[in-house]
């Protein structure tokens, strides 16, 4: 885990964010702290390091929660997962909601091209990253094994040397 300044996201994170095949999930919280997670396929990163996505629905819960972030300085989270299984969580703060002007128009026209004539863009959110964390399962497993060497079952290969009794998945997402 590392605190970062805008425009200093690791190259692999930028690559994953720009890859349209990656899965991108935005997690926000409401006024009571309840989580809300949604897929944001349009999410990518600008050259200045700010994350950006199109919000289609003015009245969505995600939009209200993003507004809460910009009003009350609350943290939101983006999970990006590449088709290779590599995953990163980026925590950030809502930086600006754009409803007009050149940035808005660019995304508006992009939505029309990609989603057709009935597409809607209520606004474009910019998110300033403040922290990035590698959530790739194999990486996280290695980190946790080092930190907590005794927190494992005896019949794991790395403990007793015995053969595993079931096939172990190689790469995949672990919820930690």
């Amino acid at each position, binding site marked *: 885990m590392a605190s970062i300044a805008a425009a200093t996201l690791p190259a692999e994170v930028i690559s994953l964010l720009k890859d349209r095949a990656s899965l991108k999930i935005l997690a926000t919280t409401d006024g009571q702290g309840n989580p809300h997670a949604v897929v944001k396929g349009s999410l990518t990163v600008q050259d200045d390091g700010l994350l950006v996505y199109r919000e289609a629905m003015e009245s969505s819960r995600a939009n209200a929660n993003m507004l809460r972030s910009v*009003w009350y300085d609350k943290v939101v989270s983006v999970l990006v997962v590449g088709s290779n299984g590599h995953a990163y969580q980026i925590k950030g703060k809502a930086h600006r*909601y754009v409803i007009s002007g050149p940035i808005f128009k660019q995304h508006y026209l992009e939505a029309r091209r990609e989603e057709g004539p009935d597409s809607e863009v209520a606004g474009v959110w910019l998110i300033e990253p403040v922290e990035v964390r590698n959530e790739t399962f194999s990486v996280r497993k290695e980190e946790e094994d080092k930190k907590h060497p005794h927190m494992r079952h005896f019949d794991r290969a790395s403990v007793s040397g015995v053969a595993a009794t079931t096939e172990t998945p190689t790469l995949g997402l672990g919820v930690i």
Partner: protein
Amino acid sequence: MSQRGSMSFKEVAAKYPDVPRLVIRKIDAGLRGVAMTDRAMERARESNSVFEDEGEPGGERAPWKLGGGTFRDGSSFLGSDFTLIGPGRPALLRGGLVPYSLDIIGEKLMLVDGEEPVEEVYLDTIPDYYGKKTSRGTPMHHIVHSDSDCLKLNPHSYCQAWSEGQPCKFCFATGRRRGSQGPKTDADLEDIYETVSEALKEPGRWTEMHLVAGSDPAGATPYENEANSYIAVLKTLKRCFGGKGLPVRLVSSAFPEKTLVRLREAGAAIVGPNLEVWDEKLFEWICPFKAKYFGRQYWIDSLVAAVKVFGRGNVRTQWVGGAEMAQPYGFKTMDEAVASTLEGTEFLARHGVSARLNILRVRQDSAFYGQKQAQPSLEYCVKLSVGIRDIRRKYGLGVALSDYRSETTRPDVDLSRLDLPDVVA
């Protein structure tokens, strides 16, 4: 006294930590006005964000206008309701409040309070149709006025209240005094058709249309002439939009139910007769023309009837927040004044009417200006905004159209943005 109460922005923000500072800042800037520096004006020119009108007969129109501006939460700032001071646009507010300034700090366009840069402001561009003319040579921006993402036009350009010398006491719409009598001619309507059609060519620019005609109570039924002006324009707009529904809001007088049905059938989506002030005696004093044509109860009955026609949440009214404290007849304390307005807000909300706040600005050319009435205090505006928002929330009423995207003096509407997932309209 120029403003009741003396709490500063920082004091109010500290006292009301649940109210976003951005919203409080917007109220404060609205009360004090914003002065454009030369550097800010130059930036606006560079970014195609200022339209320098050649003027119009009578000189009613300001010599320049901005395409609009937003704060980082996307809310409209510097809209047409805002008191913007600059070359050829003197300060018009009563009192000696020190305005904010808009200046370039580093590379950013910043709102500056005294010496302190407090918020970045993002300018919008002037609409594409500005500067173009209709086939008969009328400048399109004289026909349809833009305000952020809203197109605004006047179905007629006069207000009988001014003609009878009984305008609402806060009203500064001086142009209405000079407006020619009568509805739009066929040529006028063709100008509207050409202008709106041209405006609609700009992708992603517009989300709302707002029609406001001055009061005209004449006709076989109350305000029939005024309704006919709206209907003529609505029919013209239907040509622009094809057979699709019109996202049109009327800021109108109060109509009988049968007239409301005609307006809905003509394409209106939302109606908004403005009561302005809830207290009965203050209504008669502040809005003498509305009291005469045809009394407070008539206006209230019309609002309630409109819900049957347009549906819950699609009927609006506004309070001119602060007018109810105008002296010598107004409330003497903030708590009394807030309680009165919230009583009206709750009564109307029970009937499905969404009441909204419009902060009083004591502007030149209004009766209140001549009377040296005070502007409301920042704290008063915050308390009233929160109270109105809470009642709308309790009754599940929304604020679609004329929302934060185009309105700069309605902080209660800004606050209701967080309620959008749970309300109708």
